Structures are given as structure tokens and as C-alpha cells.
């Protein structure tokens, strides 16, 4: 467990610039909260706030999709895996690192939302539930991205992740809502995207259950594949 934590904290350290850029969006929301009249502009503020999870998902997909390849390409992975580190621990460390970064983002988003939207009358309980949904969606997206990154280049891993997350949404539009449970990232974000100041807090836990199972499945699959990959070969 300590090994996973070390790899995760190192991952966060290595990704500090993208994380700071991510947090910049939260800062922009704070500034808007300071400048705007919260009561009269509350709907506009909510729309801006509802965009924030998209950046989080994008971070999870892009960073997760490039995580393994970049470390192999830079050869820094060799020094790490020459220690008593199992491949599964390495994958777990990368995933936990992404989750750390997104938890920080989610926490800042939640605190900002509590302050800015709370003044406009948004339910604080609902807001933190939305933060939890957001984090779950991000963890699932990053698990899918890291899974693809174990055997694809960043470009293909990112495209494959985009397809894996987008296809259930398209299927849902065509064939019905149940298809969205295939990989329920949209379902987890839906309540966030559709939330209003009058939305009551009525949590649906089914997407969380499916997401939890899939996170574990993608994590195990990624570990299994990564354990069988040659990590010290030419990448091109």
C-alpha cells in the first residue's frame, strides 16, 4: 500500500502543471463569484459551474491515456520497476495519483460551489452529492483510459477512451436509457449537468454500483495486461 501511495504522490508531483491549470478554472469561478451579483446572475453562474466537470473528465482521459506510454518513453519507469514494485502496484499508483488530483479539483470545486452557488440558494447537500458523482465519473474515465494506455499509444488510448465513454451515450439516445449503464460516465454526470436551483436531492445509486464494479474490472484488466507487457522496448 505504501508503494502505491509513493507512486501516486510522485505521479501528482509530475503532473503538477496540468493540475494547476485545472485548478485555474476553479479560480476563475471564484473570481466570477466575487464580481457577479450572485442573486440575479445565479443561473449564469450555475451554467459556468456545470462546465467544470468536463475539464475534470478531460484531465482524467488525457492524463490517464498517456500515463504509461510517457513513462516508458522517458525510460523513467525502468528505475521504478527495478525496485520491489509489482506491475499491479504501479497501475494502482497511477490510478490513485489521478484520483488524488481529481479529488483536489473536486474539493476546490465543491468549496467554491458551496460559497458561490450556496449564496444563490443551491442545495449544499445536492452540491456535494454532485461532487461525489463527478469524482466517480472521473475515476471510471481514468480507469478506462489507463486500461487502454497499457497497450496503446496516447493518441489511440485517448480516442479509444473517448469512444468507450461516448458509445453508451449514443446507444442510450438510439435504443433507450439502459444502454447508458454500459459505462455509466454520462449517467454519473447527468445529474450534475441537469441540476437546477430547484432540483430536489433524489440520488440514484445504480450508476455508482455499476461504476464501482467497472472501475475494479478495468483496474484488474489493466494490471493483468500491463504485467504481460514488455516495458523496455522501442515504442515506435
Amino acid at each position, binding site marked *: 500500500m505504501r508503494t502505491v501511495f509513493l507512486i501516486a504522490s510522485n505521479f501528482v508531483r509530475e503532473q503538477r502543471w496540468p493540475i494547476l491549470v485545472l485548478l485555474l478554472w476553479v479560480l476563475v469561478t471564484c473570481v466570477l463569484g466575487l464580481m457577479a451579483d450572485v442573486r440575479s446572475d445565479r443561473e449564469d453562474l450555475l451554467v459556468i459551474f456545470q462546465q467544470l466537470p468536463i475539464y475534470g473528465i478531460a484531465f482524467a482521459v488525457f492524463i490517464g491515456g498517456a500515463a504509461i506510454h510517457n513513462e516508458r518513453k522517458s525510460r523513467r519507469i525502468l528505475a*521504478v520497476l527495478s525496485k520491489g514494485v509489482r506491475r499491479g502496484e504501479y497501475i494502482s499508483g497511477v490510478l490513485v495519483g489521478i484520483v488524488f488530483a481529481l479529488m483536489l479539483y473536486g474539493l476546490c470545486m465543491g468549496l467554491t460551489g458551496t460559497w458561490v452557488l450556496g449564496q444563490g440558494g443551491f442545495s449544499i447537500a445536492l452540491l456535494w452529492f454532485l461532487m461525489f458523482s463527478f469524482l466517480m465519473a472521473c475515476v471510471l474515465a481514468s480507469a478506462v483510459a489507463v486500461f487502454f494506455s497499457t497497450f496503446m499509444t496516447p493518441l489511440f488510448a485517448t480516442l479509444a477512451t473517448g469512444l468507450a465513454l461516448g458509445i453508451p451515450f449514443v446507444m442510450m439516445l438510439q435504443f433507450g436509457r439502459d444502454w447508458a449503464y454500459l459505462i455509466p460516465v454520462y449517467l454519473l454526470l447527468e445529474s450534475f449537468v441537469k441540476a437546477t436551483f430547484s432540483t430536489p436531492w433524489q440520488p440514484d445509486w445504480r450508476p455508482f454500483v455499476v461504476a464501482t464494479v467497472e472501475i475494479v474490472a478495468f483496474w484488474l484488466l489493466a494490471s493483468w495486461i500491463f504485467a504481460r507487457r514488455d516495458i*523496455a522496448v522501442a515504442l515506435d
Partner: protein
Amino acid sequence: MPGVIEFVNVSKEYKSWFPSRGMVRALDDFSLQVEDGEIFGFLGPNGAGKSTAIHLAMGFMRATSGHGFMLGKGFGDAATRRRVGFLAENVALYHRPAEQLVRFYGALNGMRGSSLARRAHEVVEALGLVSDARRNVRQFSRGMLQRVGLAQALVNDPQLLILDEPTSALDPVARVSVRELLLESRKAGKTIFLSSHMLSEVELVCDRVAVVNRGRLVRLGGISELLESRQESEILARGVPPNSFPGAISSDGLVRFLVEATAQRSALQRVWALGGEIVSVNPVRRSLEELFLEVTTANSSDAIGKGTT
């Protein structure tokens, strides 16, 4: 008794996704055994399969066929790697202050607390990095980076050190200190597996060497045994005319000439017959460089057969 590192009929092929690019066989039915407590030199030209063999032993890749053991466990065992120190060729490290980085790698090997801090400081000091210990390695020259790489390999006080070109970027002073460090490690009972193109250094520190070429083992043996196997002797005599022996050189009244081992006895008798006196008879030692060139330019069919250790 199993070796510290043992390759048993290991082959490794690199296949491309595109059939037109074909397949490269980096190791071909490769067998080798490294014994406990020795400094083992692993030589070969570029592309011979040295790094592939090392990466297989470290578990960075899987053999296409065959198998191997490191410290008694199959290649790739994470718990075994805790007792191993590894330095990759062209070392790549995270951008952190040097000593902090060494502590990070030590922590990955399960070390912690004051013992980790003390050991990290010790190796940083041993490699002459104390004055730069707090500087970010991003600002380091290649030679300094290599020293940090060595420090991270040594931080866990490993039983086995696997070093891929450890001195390639070092200045002569640092090279001498690394050489001393290797000799000290051997004295402490550690095994060192050293891949290097610095043949003079290998000759100085290694007990045994293996030469690989085109993925196959082409020469294996003790340094002195390999270098003296030229089957020639140099005879130094006094009181004989120089033209008595083909290729003889005369200086200060001494005549020096080379003879085949099989002709040594008759050459000595001829010196005595001419009324001369034998000053010395020495087996001719070729340099490791000569041996290396000889075996790597020879046909690959010279490979040592299956199961050679």
C-alpha cells in the same frame, strides 16, 4: 548449485505489428550462469542482446522461450528485486533534488525512516554528490546523473548489482571511485553483473566475462584464462644472435621472440644449444580488446552450445 543469475536456453524475439518489418531475434537460445560473489563482465557489440538479457533478468520483458532465475527466483519476481540494485543504460530519473530522489527509490524498496535517510546520505556521499545533494537533478550533467543513478541502485544495499554501462559518462576520477566501489562491494560478498564497453575497466575489475554476439554467447571464462589462451609464449634470452629466431628483437643484449606453445620446448633447447641463457618465459596475454574484436568479428556459428555455463 544455482547461480545468482541464470539464463536457461532463453530466446527473445521482437515482432512488429506490421509483417513487412519482420522479426528481430535479440537473444537466441542463450544460457549463462553468474556465480555468487563475482564481478561478471557482460560484453558485446551494440545490438548484441546485452540490454535485452538484462531487461529479461529484471522482469522488464518476457522471454519468447526459455526461462531464468535471479537470486533463486524466476525472472520478474518483485520481492527478489528488493535485493537487487539496477542501473539502466542512459539513466532517466524524476526531476527532484538528488538526495530526495535517492530516498524515493529507497522507499520503493521498502526502506523507511532514519535508516533510509542515513543510507541515502551514505551513498550520495560515496558517489561524491554531497555538495549537490539538494540540487534538482534536472540541472545535472550526464555524468552527475549517472552517479545519482548509481546511488539509487546502491541505496538498498543490494546483494546483486546489475549495471548497464555504469561509467560511460563519468570522468576519469569518478570512474576510479566507481571501480573502487565495485571492488569494495565484491569484498563485502556482493555479486556484480557489469555490462560495459569500457574493456580496460572490465579487464581490471571482472573475475569472469561473457561475450555475446547476435544474441548468442560466443565466449565465456575467467579473465586470465581467456586472455592467456593465445597459445603463445614470449621468450627473453641472453647470448644468442638475434637472427637465430624469426621475428626476434634485440635490445640491451637481450633477444625477445614469440613462439607457439607447441614449439616452446624446442625453442628453449635451441637457445641452450646456441650457448645462450634463458632470462624469462611468459605466456602472451592479449588484451580484452583483442579478444573482443576476435570473437565479435568471427562468424556467429562460433556460438557456445546449449546449456553452457
